[in-house]
């Protein structure tokens, strides 16, 4: 098992957000995490990437059989965990190409591979940037500075395709994307699909799952996974909204349709 989450409880500023998550993801699988706003989807994504400010009060997370929660964010990244941010950060003064090169070489060094020289690195990046249909000029601009919402998300996918993670977590990568951008982002993700690699796709809408077809779909509500199923669950949610799932889980209705 690539990723095993067992009874994970997480609080933010003393407030419980995740209340006992159990989830197992095998290499080669794509899992979609869906759920209404405020259900804890982004918290789960951020905890897995190692963001500060999240207190794990109970439970454990094993990644490749190791305790993921003990690892620093950079160590997780070097071990193949990648988080595509819901809100990619603008970093004026640090160029995109510098970040990519530093990241690639940090990962390679960790894996005992020689660092890429400038030539080989540029060749790699230029190949990948075509995949997300970004202009090469973006490489020399400051990270995400002045990028449109869609450009930022494509930049996340560019980083992902360059870093070739083992476990990619996409945190609402579809939010704010028009249909063309959605397609480009999905193609980038699909190009990475392989038997060694797993994806955790966090989304509010089923729309993204038309392009990135999941093996399993989980509904997160009230800090728990209240229902799991295959792709048809996502389609059902699109048709009927989240209300019925929440009611069945004893959480009461209130959330609107999921499409």
């Amino acid at each position, binding site marked *: 098992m690539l990723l095993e989450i067992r009874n994970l409880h997480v609080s933010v500023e003393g407030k419980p957000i995740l209340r006992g998550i159990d989830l197992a993801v095998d290499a080669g699988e794509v899992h979609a995490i869906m759920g209404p706003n405020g259900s804890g989807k982004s918290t789960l994504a951020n905890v897995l990437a*190692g963001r500060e400010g999240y207190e794990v009060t109970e439970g454990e997370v094993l990644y490749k059989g190791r305790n993921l929660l003990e690892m620093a*964010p*950079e160590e997780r*990244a070097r071990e193949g965990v990648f988080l595509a941010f819901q809100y990619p*950060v603008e970093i004026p003064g640090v160029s995109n190409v510098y970040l990519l090169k530093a*990241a690639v070489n940090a990962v390679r060094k*960790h894996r005992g591979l020689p660092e890429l020289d400038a030539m080989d690195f540029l060749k790699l990046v230029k190949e990948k940037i075509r995949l997300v249909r970004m202009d090469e000029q973006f490489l020399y601009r400051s990270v995400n500075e002045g990028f449109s919402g869609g450009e930022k998300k494509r930049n996340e996918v560019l980083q992902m395709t360059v870093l070739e993670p083992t476990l990619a977590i996409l945190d609402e990568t579809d939010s704010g994307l028009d249909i063309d951008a959605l397609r480009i982002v999905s193609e980038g993700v699909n190009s990475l699909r392989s038997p060694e690699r797993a994806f955790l796709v966090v989304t509010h809408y089923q729309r993204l799952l038309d392009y990135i077809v999941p093996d399993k779909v989980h509904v997160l509500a009230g800090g728990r996974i209240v229902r799991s199923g295959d792709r048809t669950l996502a389609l059902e949610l699109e048709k009927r909204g989240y209300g019925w799932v929440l009611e069945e889980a004893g959480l009461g209705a209130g959330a609107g349709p999921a499409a």
Partner: protein
Amino acid sequence: MSAQPQPRPDPAERLAAAFRERRARLPGAGLAWLEALREQALERFRAAGLPARGDEDWKYTDVRALARRLAPPAAGPGPVAEDAVRALAFEGLEAHRIVLVDGFLVPGLSALGALPEGVTVMGLAEALAREPQALAPWLRLPEGADGFTALNLAFMTDGVWLRVADGVALERPLQIVHLRSAAPEAGAHLRHVLTLGAGARATVIETHAATAEADVLDNLGCTVALAAGAALDHYVVRESGAGLCHVGRIDVRQEAGSRYVSHNVTLGGRLTRSAIQVELAGEGAETHLYGAYVVGGRQQVDNHTRIEHRTAGAVSRELYKGVLDGRARGAFTGRVVVHPGAQRTDAEQANHNLLLSEDAEADSRPQLEIYADDVKCSHGSTVGELDETSLFYLRSRGIDAELARSLLVYAFASDVLERMALEPVRVQLERRLTAVLLAGREAEGVI
């Protein structure tokens, strides 16, 4: 205040006595106007003394630390290794080089090379011997000069005189290297005079470094005069050792259409007090003051700038950025004065600070005084910390925490360096900035 077991002689009296004993051997001795100036300056020093604690202009400078190190000049330069000079060269930069050690020009270490016609570069002492009348107009006690400036004029031992004739361009930069030897306690009282004729162009790079961890004070004065249409790029880079205190004052006067660009970088030294005063005296004159100060440990930096818009249609741009780690203190006081009649003044001023530790302190005082109505002026200042989200973003891409921190700090300060036209200087300072940032952790407590 703690009681001193053995009261030391009053520093002012000590200096005055040293002056009386020295004056006949100071450069230009025998020139009546100069002797009068030195006497007048000493009188000013005795009357004004050193700035007091309550003096607003010196609020953020530890004057007592300076006073302890305030000493008369040495009799001559102490020995320094040639390696120390080489270390201060900028890779890939061809420059006319003058080296001053302990306040004295050392010809053996200097490499002036061939100068274009119409350009004079010589030591101040030599100039006072050969062409005193040419210098006379530029050596004056400024009105309201403080104790340090007064002492500088009383004691000045040497310096650099650069004169560029009308219409002449000094293509290669002039690099002025200031070094301190491991010589005993002595002050360096230096004065530079940089005069550019109409339409003349030049670049001057001043570097300051101590070869030893000497616990000394440099007291530097600089007069800049730009005639109509002249352009001077003026770099001042301080990478002094841990004991060196530096007091510097630059007085700039700009005629119509002239352009002055200052890059004022402090990466070292125990205490740096830098003052730049610019008089925009001619229409359309343009001044750019850029500064970066990156210090840690117990280092202190106090930057003062004053820009006087005395004429219509002049432009001033100012950006100072500070990065403060450890228990460092950084202050910025920037005053822009728009005088009556200085219509169409266009002035922008900003100071931004990044605190890397809870014990670091930044004080920012941008000040605007406007006495004209048709002007465009803005100012702003910020004091902040490293953005945790950005830090996490970089780490989540595999970059370790220390490098991520340095990268963000570097990014913060780099837009000041980016404005440097001289690429070899910019590239080297970027490298040194990175080195300072990465070594900063270990150096804490040492400085």
